[in-house]
């Protein structure tokens, strides 16, 4: 079931100088997010992903196109009704954006107070949320007394206080160190699994997508250039922009410069075998090479695991007679992708 649907969405800003062309931040984007998805949107800074996520809760006004949230077209709603829509969508931020003048408990209570919930309910819900994010002992502390990871956990508790069905995460881990990032990602995973909250997360870190997202869209210059299951995009990216992101976390087929470096250290022919879940097994490849009397040495690459499905690229230096190597490569390439460096 769709929970957020964008159709041909455009967001443009007035030109910086009079008479100039308007600045198009989002260029005809369509996106379908299903209930329960963790939908990752990745792109470099300036790609438009921050703007895109702000269109979903109408913090920014859409120039044209349609955005349907939970069955409701929001682009035509008046400001007063949009406030109610925003109250039903949680949002967390890169810089946490906690109210420094309020205690942790008061921060979490804020959206509930805005929604006009009775005081007793607010107290109860705040206690529940504090418990969920593991910060019950910090209720009376102020944000400046917390670590970065704790601040983001308060941010998550505040965003989820009104039990929204959707959580927007704007570079939620980009200001955190690797260990704390893991902690916050684990919490977001629980939010999705235990509370059934649909998460739309934007990031420039492919690692975040790999560990949390089920689907991914790659943004470049205001457009979505590729989208799909995280496994498909990681194991077989179709667009240059996607491939660049995948390369940041996955060692793929070595580039010619990398091949030169490998040649300097290894003798033999440099061949990359690509594996994808369901293709021929690694064991079969190694058995074939051994049976043909070809020596092999693993020189580059690795195997990656995404949600229990494996893929990867292994680059081997093969030694033996050319005839034997050619024969075995022909056999293996019937079952899986073989790329030889020239």
């Amino acid at each position, binding site marked *: 079931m769709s929970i957020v649907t964008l159709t041909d969405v455009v967001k443009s800003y007035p030109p910086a100088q009079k008479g100039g062309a308007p600045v198009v931040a989002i260029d005809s984007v369509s996106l379908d997010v299903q209930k329960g998805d963790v939908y990752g949107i990745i792109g470099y800074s300036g790609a438009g992903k921050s703007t895109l996520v702000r269109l979903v*809760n109408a*913090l920014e006004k859409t120039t044209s196109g349609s955005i349907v949230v939970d069955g409701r077209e929001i682009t035509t709603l008046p400001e*007063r009704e949009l*406030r*109610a*829509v*925003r*109250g*039903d*969508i949680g*949002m967390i*931020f890169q*810089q946490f*954006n*906690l*109210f*420094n*003048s*309020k205690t942790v408990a008061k921060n979490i209570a*804020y*959206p509930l*107070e*805005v*929604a006009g919930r009775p005081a007793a309910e607010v107290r109860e819900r705040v206690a529940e949320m504090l418990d969920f994010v593991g910060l019950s002992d910090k209720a009376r502390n*102020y944000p*400046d007394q917390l670590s970065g990871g704790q601040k983001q956990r308060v941010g998550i508790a*505040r965003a989820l206080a009104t039990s929204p069905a959707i959580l*927007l995460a704007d570079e939620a881990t980009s200001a955190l160190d690797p260990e704390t990032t893991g902690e916050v990602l684990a919490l977001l995973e629980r939010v999705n699994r235990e509370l059934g909250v649909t998460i739309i997360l934007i990031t420039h870190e492919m690692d975040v997508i790999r560990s949390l997202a089920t689907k991914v869209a790659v943004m470049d210059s205001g457009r979505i250039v590729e989208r799909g299951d995280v496994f498909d995009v990681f194991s077989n990216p179709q667009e240059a922009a996607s491939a660049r992101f995948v390369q940041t976390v996955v060692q793929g087929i070595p580039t010619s410069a990398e091949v030169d470096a490998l040649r300097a250290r290894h003798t033999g022919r440099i061949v990359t075998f690509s594996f994808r879940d369901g293709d021929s097994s690694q064991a079969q490849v190694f058995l074939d090479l051994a049976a043909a009397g070809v020596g092999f040495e693993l020189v580059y690459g690795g195997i990656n695991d995404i949600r229990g499905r494996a893929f990867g690229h292994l680059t081997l230096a093969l030694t033996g007679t050319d005839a034997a190597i050619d024969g075995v490569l022909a056999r293996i390439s019937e079952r899986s992708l073989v790329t030889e460096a020239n």
Partner: protein
Amino acid sequence: MDRLLELLPELGEATVETLYIVVISLFFGGIGGLLLGLALYTTRAGSLFENRAAFTLLNILVNIFRPIPFIIFIAAVQPLARLVLGIGIGNSALIFAISLGATFGISRIVEQNLLTVSPGVIEAARAAGAGPFRIIRTVILPEALGPLILGYTFVFVAIVDMSAVGGYIGGGGIGNFAILYGYRQFNPVVTWAAVLVIILLVQLVQFSGNALARKILRR
């Protein structure tokens, strides 16, 4: 020295008068400045009630009135004081002029302090579904409270300064006391006594303001 002892009751009375003038002026000017400052802050580009025309108008208005030397301002607004209060002289007219003059100065201080509130925090409140007036009341003002208290402390001192020329339109206070009994009667001891009282007053207020701001800022 004997003369000073003789004048002590007058000095006491003048001190109370100064306090009265300053506190009432700070109250009205403080409210006026807060509203004008909020108007400047919220109408500027990218803010809650972004409105270029309104911002430009207010900005020019404040720029015109704020730099007028107070002793000239006090005379210039005398007709307005007569219109509003029915009288152009004395403490009431003085309080009127100070409140009006301080409104423009305070509005800039308020505007500058509100600009220190992180836009991200305001965005978080908007994302929670809060409307602009609620955001001003529950986020912007509380987040800027520490610096605002320091700003108003600074304004208190400036208003003590403004009130010193009260004698010019028949108002009282320590300034008037110093001119009347010290300067004009060639009695520097009396003048210096008035200075001492003002120094004590300013120190006391600055100290309290700092302590309060420190408490709010928790540092």
